[in-house]
Structures are given as structure tokens and as C-alpha cells.
């Protein structure tokens, strides 16, 4: 079986401007929604109490909402979680009341209403922890970005490093944009997914850059645009197949993983789809505009006595 029967190199770079314009518009929209709507942060970041309760019959949300609001909490969110019988209740952090008291109070009130209700889980996060988690998240993001830039700059060249990280950070912003637009809950697990996607979709750029470097060595007569087009064309089938197989896994999580893994898998899905787009169409184009050329990658003298270079033997 072969899905990709490409006769000639596809002139991707001819349309680089169009691709980047699309990408830029999506990016701008994502930023716009991030600023206007903001992220719907989970209790892990905001602090507060989250309770998941289960009824034996489909739950009457309005009744639950009514019961909880009589307890004097402001801004209570009550919604179904997964099935109609499971209800998720979010309470904001209150000064002077411990979580134990909060969730007990709510459960007692709900039990008084309907004795069949059972507590499936609670989660309480104090406000100071929430702030720390947000900070740690940003630190982790910074660490990943700097780490990848340094690694790529050493392995390839700074222009590649910069273009790869721009392309993939734009994926991250777009994922966040989706979460802002649909007001999906942004939890720690989603943050983990976002960072994993960042590491993963840089892969894609790496594969293409590897090929570009190899092509520079192999095809001395081609110009930069042709070399990039050839590199993308010859790697596109593997790009799509690998992302496809990763997506199979993610899809399996989306289908079987339940509500807890839902947004995690969602973030990965968006990340994988935009990861293909950005590494194929955006990263190489940015590298091209940054003025990547043969001399950046092939240092004639150094190459021969560099045993660490796995590609040193790949000369036709």
C-alpha cells in the first residue's frame, strides 16, 4: 500500500507567503480570543474546590444548583461530567473555610435532598498553590523553549532553531486559542499535553531540517528553494503517517479515556494537526526568509574530521 505517489517536487515555497498568511491569521485570532475571552482555568490554577458526585438516576442540574446556592457560595458552577448521572460542582476558594468543611457541607446538603448521591472525588487547591502552579507552568514552558533552541542551534544552525521554535510556539498559542474560544477547561493535564506537543512537533521540523541539510550536501546544483521543496516533498508521507499513528492513539484516548482525559486528548489533537501544518509550511519558510544557505550547514573543513556527524558518510 502506498498513499503518496508524488511525481515531482511540490513547490511549497512558492506559496510560502499564503501559508504564512493563513498561519498568521489563525495565530492573531487565537491571541484575540485569549485576550478577550481568556482561558477557563481549572481549580488547580485558580484555587477552589471541585467535587464530582454521582446519582443513580440522571441528575437534575437545576435542583443541584439550587441546593448548593442556598449554602451561600458565590459563583458556583454545576455541570454534567461525562454522563447525565455525574455532576461536577466547582466552588471558589473561600477565606477561613477549609476545603474539608466546604465539600462536607455541600455533600450533606445534597444528601439531604437525595440520599442516593455518592461522592466520587473532590479536589481542593489553596490559592497560593494555584499561583505556584501557574508560575511553574510558565517556567517549564521557558525551559522547553530555551532547551530546544539551544539544542537545535548546536545540532543545526540558529536560523533553524529560531524558525522551529517560532513555528511551534505558534502551535501552542493556537491550542490555547481553541481553549479560550470554546472555553474548555484548561487544567494541569492540558498544560502537560501542550508541552508534550511542543516537544513532539519540533520533531517534525527536525526531520525536515535533517533532510534539508542532507540535500544541501547531495544536490550541489539546486538552489535553496528547490532544496527545501525537495526535502518537504520527500518527507511528507512519513510526516503524515507518523502523525496519523500518533493521532490514532490520541483518538483512542478521546474515545475511551473518559472525561478526565478528554481535554488532554483534545489539546493533543489540535497540537498534532497544527503541528503538521506549521512544521511543513511555516518552519521551513521562516528558515528560508532568515536566509538559510548551504554554507550555514556545511562547513567544508570541519565536516571531514567530525566523527559525531552521522551524516558525514551520506555523500553521493
Amino acid at each position: 500500500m502506498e498513499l503518496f505517489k508524488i511525481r515531482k517536487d511540490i513547490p511549497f515555497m512558492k506559496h510560502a507567503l499564503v501559508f504564512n498568511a493563513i498561519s498568521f491569521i489563525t495565530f492573531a485570532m487565537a491571541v484575540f480570543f485569549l485576550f478577550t475571552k481568556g482561558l477557563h482555568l481549572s481549580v488547580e490554577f485558580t484555587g477552589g474546590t471541585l467535587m464530582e458526585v454521582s446519582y443513580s438516576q440522571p441528575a437534575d442540574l437545576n435542583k443541584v444548583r439550587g441546593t448548593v446556592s442556598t449554602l451561600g457560595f458565590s459563583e458556583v458552577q454545576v455541570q454534567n461530567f461525562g454522563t447525565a448521572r455525574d455532576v461536577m460542582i466547582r466552588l471558589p476558594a473561600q477565606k477561613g473555610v477549609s476545603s474539608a468543611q466546604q465539600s462536607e457541607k455541600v455533600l450533606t446538603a445534597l444528601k439531604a435532598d437525595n440520599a442516593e448521591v455518592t461522592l466520587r472525588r473532590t479536589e481542593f487547591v489553596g490559592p497560593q498553590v494555584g499561583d505556584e502552579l501557574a508560575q511553574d507552568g510558565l517556567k517549564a514552558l521557558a525551559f522547553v523553549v530555551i532547551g530546544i533552541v539551544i539544542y537545535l542551534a548546536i545540532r543545526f544552525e540558529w536560523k533553524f532553531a529560531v524558525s522551529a521554535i517560532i513555528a511551534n510556539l505558534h502551535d501552542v498559542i493556537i491550542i490555547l486559542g481553541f481553549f479560550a474560544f470554546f472555553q474548555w477547561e484548561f487544567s494541569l493535564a492540558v498544560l502537560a499535553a501542550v508541552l508534550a506537543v511542543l516537544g513532539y512537533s519540533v520533531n517534525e521540523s527536525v526531520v525536515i531540517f535533517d533532510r534539508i541539510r542532507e540535500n544541501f550536501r547531495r544536490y550541489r546544483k539546486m538552489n535553496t528553494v528547490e532544496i527545501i521543496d525537495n526535502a518537504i516533498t520527500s518527507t511528507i508521507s512519513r510526516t503524515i503517517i507518523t502523525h496519523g499513528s500518533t493521532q490514532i492513539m490520541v483518538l483512542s484516548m478521546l474515545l475511551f479515556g473518559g472525561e478526565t482525559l478528554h481535554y488532554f486528548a483534545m489539546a493533543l489533537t489540535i497540537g498534532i494537526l497544527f503541528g503538521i501544518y506549521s512544521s511543513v509550511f511555516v518552519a521551513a519558510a521562516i528558515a528560508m526568509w532568515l536566509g538559510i544557505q548551504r554554507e550555514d550547514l556545511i562547513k567544508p573543513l570541519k565536516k571531514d574530521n567530525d566523527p559525531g556527524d552521522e551524516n558525514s558518510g551520506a555523500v553521493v
Partner: protein
Amino acid sequence: MNRYPVWKYAIIVIAMLLGVVYTLPNFFGEAPAVQVSSGKATIKVDTQTLQKVEDALKAAAVNAQTVTLEGGSIRARFENTDEQLKAKDAIQKALTPEGADPQYVVALNLVSRSPAWLTSLHASPMYLGLDLRGGVHFMLQVDMQAALTQKVESITGDLRSLLREKDVRHGGISRNGQAIEIRLRDAQQLEAAKRVLSAQFADLQTQEVAEGTEFRLTASIKPEAARKVQEQALKQNITTLHNRINELGVAEPVIQQQGLDRIVVQLPGVQDTAKAKDILGRTATLEVRMVDESTEARGAEQAGGIVPFGAERYLERDGRPLIVKKQVVLTGDNLTDAQPGFDGQTQEPVVNLTLDAKGARIFKDVTRDNVGKRMAIILFEKGKGEVVTAPVIRAEIGGGRVQISGRMTTAEANDTALLLRAGSLAAPMEIIEERTIGPSLGAENIAKGFNSVTWGFLVIVAFMVVYYAMFGLFSGIALGVNLLFLVAILSMLQATLTLPGMAAMALALGMAIDSNVLINERVREELRNGVSPQAAIHAGYDRAWATIFDSNITTLIAGVALLAFGSGPVRGFAVVHCIGILTSMFSAVFFSRGLVNLWYGGKKKLKSVSIGTVWRPEGGSAVKAD
């Protein structure tokens, strides 16, 4: 060119064997068990205890599958939960007679059903996180400022009595925040006070200010000493938590320091979460003070008049007000134990207190000077004090053993003892993070994670076989081996597996196949360019390796960042993610190459390889390579 030397195959075989052995325990499931562990640092669980447990089981006619002593705890395994519950009652009765001080913790637990030879190899199943087995997780923040303030307060008291003893006259000692201020009339007294301070209180640093003819000496705790106070406070709180949790009877509690001022408590399998929260959340400190017996105080008590200087009003448990002096005689620091019991003569319920040496000395002095007066034991919870009991001192009490009696029911005596024990926290704590997962949700989460991994795996393998034929099959086997290694390493390290960890496992497999796709595509490309099959395999693996390495490193950078900065669920994800990347490099490249070499490597005149359709644009039509 496509042959592995024998040692490479040997590595593969050994790795596979280890992988199988350490993965195996995960398939045996878990059996209900009763676990006996020590409830006190001084009590050891040994072969004698083992004998007692076995005798108790025999006497109760409960049949245990195995009874083992390992790592300071005894585990008895049973066929079903009925037997387990019967056994627990029997063991509890034998080891901890009712009313006595419980020396052992007897708890229900689950143990692996894996056979003894696996256990002897230290192969045990993966350690499941709370979100998979159910339980409670707490993070407690210790209020260090309060610990310091409390320390300064007690030093102030000591200082006052010491200055009186040494005949240093002063114009008043008071605590101002975390500093002690001493007013002194002249330079001579100042010198005397400074001598006392430097000789007796090495932890204090002083500063003097002249105010007209008088002097003010400010003493504060040195930073090193403050750090020590904080360390001790944390340690004592952890000990207290241990004791409280022992009362709950949890099989494998985790109580750990996190950072400088936090404690993490995890209670796997706890069903009664409300009680756990109640016992842990009781953030109380204890103080013993004298009741103010002056007439003004009596008046203030009865008519709600002005509270005399140097005293405070607290409520007793039945709501009556009591005027108590501000000066603290003893704190919970000095209390080592509190147990309910019965008076030997009157058979009245009592609470027996045990004090440490310093506490015993102070208590002896105070009771000698105050026979016939009342002392109050006050419990502070979240800054609010409540008088637990205010007994009359009948005689001088030495030796540090104190009995509190008076119109208590047995339940009240139990309660008071528990409250007093709970009171020996060095500093107040607050729950700042809490996670409770019901047991049914845990089981559901396991099923969800398992299904995600299984279905994803099967579909990917099916696709690989259809698309890459024989090479796809090799890739699929390599992916299975990857999963085997991942589970084996997680079991070996006893790393905690959580639901995000299972998600990471799924993702790791999805990403691992990337390497095989890269290799297979590369081999196809070489074949397309007209290279001979053996050379194509060789070039495919060789050239793909650089790319695989680069791309795995970038993913690993993200994984390490998550490991370094993540906490809780993110950490669980990161551990599996990182291990998954490492195992995938081994299985997808080294192992799958081994398979390919074994299959094709020996054939000298290999005409074609089974890697699906290799399409050649020149011919205009597809040429099947196999």
C-alpha cells in the same frame, strides 16, 4: 552487512527476559490482605509478632493463604474479603486489647497475587497512584511564623523566671511580635541582664537602646536557631501526623516533607474520607495555663465584666466562660502522650497524660505552688482557643504522669485524650491542597486508561502491517516490546502510575511508532532509488538514526521540563513520558533492526523485501517489491 554479532542478540534476549519477569506481577491481580505494622517507633514487628498473628488466625479458624514478614510489617493474604474482615477482627483483638494503648496498626490492604519466586526477585506490580486505586491526598502548609512566635513566647516566660531567680530587676518583659523587649533602669542591671542572656539563652541575639536614663534590651532569635525551630516544628508535625494516621489504620500511608514548610499526606484506599479529613484537619495546639482565681476574674466570669490585666477569657466546652492567665505553663510540646483509662480506685473514666522531662519539672513546680487552684488545658484550633478541661490541683504532681478526672463519660475521656494527643502539633497547619478519589472512580480510571492503550495499540499495529507488510509486523512487534519494557521499568522502579501516566503511555506508543515509520519510509525510498534490498535496509536504518535521535532529544527536553517543574498529575505524566522515549529508542531502532537482521540478514542474494508497495515514478506504475 545486516548482521548482528551474537552479543547484540544476547543483549536483546536478556532485556526481553528481564522485561517479561518484571512485567509478569502485573498480571496476577491483587488479593485481599491484612497488614500489621508498628504503631510506635519503639515497637518492632518481628517473628514474635508473626507468631502471635498466626496463632490468632488459627484460633479464629481463618485460613490465610500466606503470612509473611517483610520490611517491618506482616501481611496475611486471604481468599476473599469475608475472610479478610474476620481475620482483621481476630488479629486486632489479639494484638491490641481493648482500652489499652494500641501498639500495632492493623489495616486492610491489597497485596499482589504473584507467586513467591517473583516476589523473591523483587518483581512487584506497578505502584498505582491515588487516582487509580482511590484514596486521599493532602498537602499541608505549616505556619512557621506561628511556630516562631510560640517559641518566643515560651522563651519570654523562661526569661522572666530566670531574671527573678538571678535577682535582676527590670521594668517589664514583653513579647513584641517575634522579639522580646526588656526594660532596665540602669546600666548595671543592663549588664546583669545581658550576662544572663548570653549565658543561658545561646539562641538569642540582643540589641540595646538607651532611652533617657533607662535602657531597652531587645532580644530576638538568631537566624540559625530560627531555622532549627522550623525544622523541628516540621519534624514534630510529621510525627504527630503519623500518630493520627495510625489511629485511622491505613495500610501504606505516605507522609513526606515537601519543600521547607509543607507536608504531603497520601492515604491510599481510605474509604471514610470524611473521617480522615477530620482527624488530619484538626490543626490544633495545646497550652496549659493557670485559671485566674482573683475576685475580678470571678466577676468577669459571672457577670461578663472587664477581664483583669494579664488574663483572657475562654469558653469551656459546655459554653461557660473561664478567665485564664495569659502566661503559659506548658505547651503541647511537652506532652508526649495522652490516653483514656479508668481510675484504679473509683473506676471513673480518666485521661492519663505523660509529660517529657522538662514538662514534668515545670509541672511539679507549678502544682506544688498551686495546690487547691485550678489549671486549664486549652486547645487552640485556627487561632481560637477552647478550654478542654480545667481540673483542680489536688496535690503536687511529680514524675510527669498526670491523671485528669472528673465527671467524664468514657466517650468524653476518649475524645479528650484524642484532642490532647492531636494537640501536640508544634505549629498550626492548614490543608492547601486536597484530592479525594472514590474507589469506584479509581477502578473506572484503570479501565479507561487500559482501553485507551489497548485500542490505540491494536489499530496502530494493524495499520503498520497493512501498510508496510513484513516490516510493519516487525514495527508492531517492536512496539509491543516497547510497551513491555515500559511496564517492566515502571514496575522495577516502583514509580507511581497515574491516569495521566497511562495517557503518557499511550502517547509514548504513538510517538514511538514515529521512529519505525521513519526507518521504513527511508528503506522504501532507497529501494525506489534502485538500491539493492540489503543496502536499502542498511542505509534506511543508518540514515534514519540521526533523525530519530534528534527528534527524541527535543521530545525529551519537554519531558524533563515537565519532570522538573511539574507537580502532582503532571509529574506522573512526565515520568512515563521520559521513560517511554528512552525505551522507544531501544526497541524501535536496536530491537527492530535485530528482527530485520534475523529475517533478511542471512540471505546473501536477497531479491526483494516485504515492505509494502514501493512506488516508482519513472515507470509510471507501481512495482511491487515483494
